[in-house]
């Protein structure tokens, strides 16, 4: 049965795995490895984990606008767990999936309640959208539920709304953009126009770059979020008429795709494209084909071509396992799983003292595909190195981001 599962799953690398498959995969992998360790005799004593299952409640979108991101994060988590045979600290790791997008903003909180009160999970991981993470905060804080945010970037979670029970393995909206201001100035961009989706993440990005950009900000073009008509022509026209040296862009998903497709023909060729790396991440690049803004300089805490061993192994393994090119969200999922495993090992599987477990989480440190991974005590947020990447046209990979420089130790101020 185990082999059938493996073969069946590998034959459909692109499909999302249903919750039960996920579970079975964890079990069969652990089981198969246990059997292998015993020399294949089914009757022999298994060397698998003996402690109680460690249950993770994964709240990620499997429907709606962010389903693609949720899929990447889930796959990233799964890849790492498979690497350690879904066990750590002498406990088997089991994941229960819930759809973050199964309704409006009140749903993720309901799912969290279910996971904690009905399924008895030991930890909650995931959350792509910031409003959902913010909605959960009071609940997990009051009920002392260890929580790892694998994407949602709201600055508040590292500042006014930080909690001893909530740590973030992804980024705060501030991180990718704050150092970019200085970078742009140092590279001769004197006149800048900001282009960002008019919602919290865009607003926080704009505020961040303004902290270090000392040149002239000509105007801020804020298309509505989401841009229902998909028409960016009026905004691109506004950009053109402000005559900047460069634009700094923050957009993601559909909006990024529509914007770039239209910018290809309508944006003034003399304007350099820069921005927060999300708008040229893999999910966007695969959809826009040759509308990719070659030459774009963006800042992000990872790049596909980042040259370190961990990243090479990770991207190869991800592609092989899922037939999908890794993206920054997959890395975040991968790191989240690793944080859990490292913390579990550190407490030797004993999580009855939840505060001690959180302290172990706070102290983890390892080499991740994005570089050195560790949390900042003050902001409960990962310390990121922000890489400046240039979008180039690679003969093998197509449009891809190449790292040109890096700004290490970008720590969210925490207030």
């Amino acid at each position, binding site marked *: 049965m185990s082999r059938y599962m493996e073969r069946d799953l590998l034959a459909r690398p*692109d*499909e*999302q795995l249903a919750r039960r498959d996920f579970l079975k995969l964890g079990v069969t992998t652990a089981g198969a490895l246990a059997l292998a360790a015993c020399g294949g005799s089914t009757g022999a004593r298994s060397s698998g984990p003996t402690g109680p299952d460690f249950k993770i409640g994964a709240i990620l979108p*499997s*429907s*709606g*606008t962010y*389903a*693609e991101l949720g*899929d990447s994060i889930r796959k990233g988590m799964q890849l790492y767990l498979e690497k350690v045979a879904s066990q750590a600290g002498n406990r088997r790791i089991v994941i229960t999936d819930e759809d973050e997008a199964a309704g409006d903003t009140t749903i993720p909180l309901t799912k969290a309640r279910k996971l904690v009160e009905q399924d008895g999970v030991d930890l909650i991981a995931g959350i792509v959208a910031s409003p959902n993470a913010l909605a959960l905060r009071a609940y997990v804080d009051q009920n002392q539920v260890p929580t790892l945010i694998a994407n949602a970037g709201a600055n508040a979670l590292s500042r006014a709304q930080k909690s001893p029970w909530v740590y973030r393995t992804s980024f705060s909206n501030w991180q990718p953009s704050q150092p970019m201001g200085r970078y742009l100035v140092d590279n001769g961009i004197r006149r800048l126009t900001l282009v960002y989706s*008019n919602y919290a993440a865009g607003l926080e990005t704009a505020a961040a770059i303004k902290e270090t950009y000392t040149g002239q900000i000509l105007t801020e073009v*804020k*298309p*509505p979020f*989401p841009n*229902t*008509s*998909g*028409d960016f*022509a*009026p*905004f691109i*026209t*506004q950009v*053109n*008429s402000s005559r900047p040296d460069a634009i700094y862009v923050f957009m993601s998903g*559909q909006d990024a*795709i*529509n914007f770039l*497709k*239209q910018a290809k*023909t*309508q944006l003034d060729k003399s304007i350099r494209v820069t921005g927060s790396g999300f708008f040229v991440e893999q*999910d*966007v690049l*695969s*959809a*826009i*084909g*040759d509308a990719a803004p070659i030459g774009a300089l963006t800042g992000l805490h990872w790049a596909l071509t980042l040259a370190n061993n961990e990243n090479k192994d990770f991207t190869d393994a991800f592609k092989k396992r899922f037939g999908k090119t890794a993206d920054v969200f997959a890395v975040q999922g991968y790191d989240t799983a690793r944080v859990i495993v490292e913390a579990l090992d550190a407490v030797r599987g004993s999580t009855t003292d939840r505060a001690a477990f959180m302290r172990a989480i706070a102290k983890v440190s390892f080499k991740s595909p994005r570089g050195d991974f560790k949390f900042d005590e003050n902001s409960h947020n990962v310390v990121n190195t922000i890489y400046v990447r240039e979008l180039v046209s690679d003969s093998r990979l197509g449009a891809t981001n190449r790292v040109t420089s890096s700004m290490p130790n970008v720590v969210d101020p925490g207030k």
Partner: protein
Amino acid sequence: MALGLQLTLSGLAFGGLVFLLAVGLTVILGLMDVLNLAHGSFYMLGAYAGVTVLHIVGSFWLALALAPIVLALLGAALEVAFFRRLTGRGPLMQVLLTFGLSLVFVDLVRWRFGPQNQPFPAPPQLSGSIGILDFRFPVYEAFVIAVAALLGAALLLGWRRLRVGAILRAGVADREMVGLLGVDLARVFTLTFAAGAGLAGLAGVIAGPYLATYPGMDENVLILALAVVVVGGLGSVAGALVGALLIGLATSVGPFLRQEIATALVFGVMALVLLVRPRGLFGLRA
């Protein structure tokens, strides 16, 4: 001056797309009293049908030709299977039925194709841009304007001059009478529904290279098509044309004037028309 022209042209392109979607919706609503919220699903399915054809055969033009046919067949099937049963039940039931159907279609698409955006390149003949005054206008958008204009003219002509147009116009004005005059209403309904679905599917294929192709792509454009139907008047092709033009220009120019009100503007226009002249600009009945 050039800015105004550029905004107008993009507005026309987007308006043209919305027209293709709205014309089916308005005739179906005017003739059959069916408010079909699954009309957006036809649009989405058309785009995905186009992607599939493109994938298999590699020809955009073939996709453009085949997708509407597939959608027309689907539309006819749905009309016979579901909508027949709802005659006379009132708008709410249809809204809820079609709401449910759209959930089903979106999820089916997501299941089969995944949640990610599908690459949908424009054919090489339509790539690139043309220089107009001091800006560059995408060839593809010019193509959209051309297709919408041609189809609009053809539909308007057919509506006014052909027998089938007369039947439809009469049906919108007084359905019972038309039935009494011996016209096979059931067949007319099915064909109309099919044609509307086909046009929506065409709009989907056209939107593919221009906007994004993903499972939830229907929701945004559907609301706009609804606004066009309201503004233009139920059951009027000319109304759909004029309404689409206005809505297209509104979405293009609106954000340029005041960014914050951009989203609310479309609904505002819709509300205003409903209040001042509920039957719309060219509506055939109150």
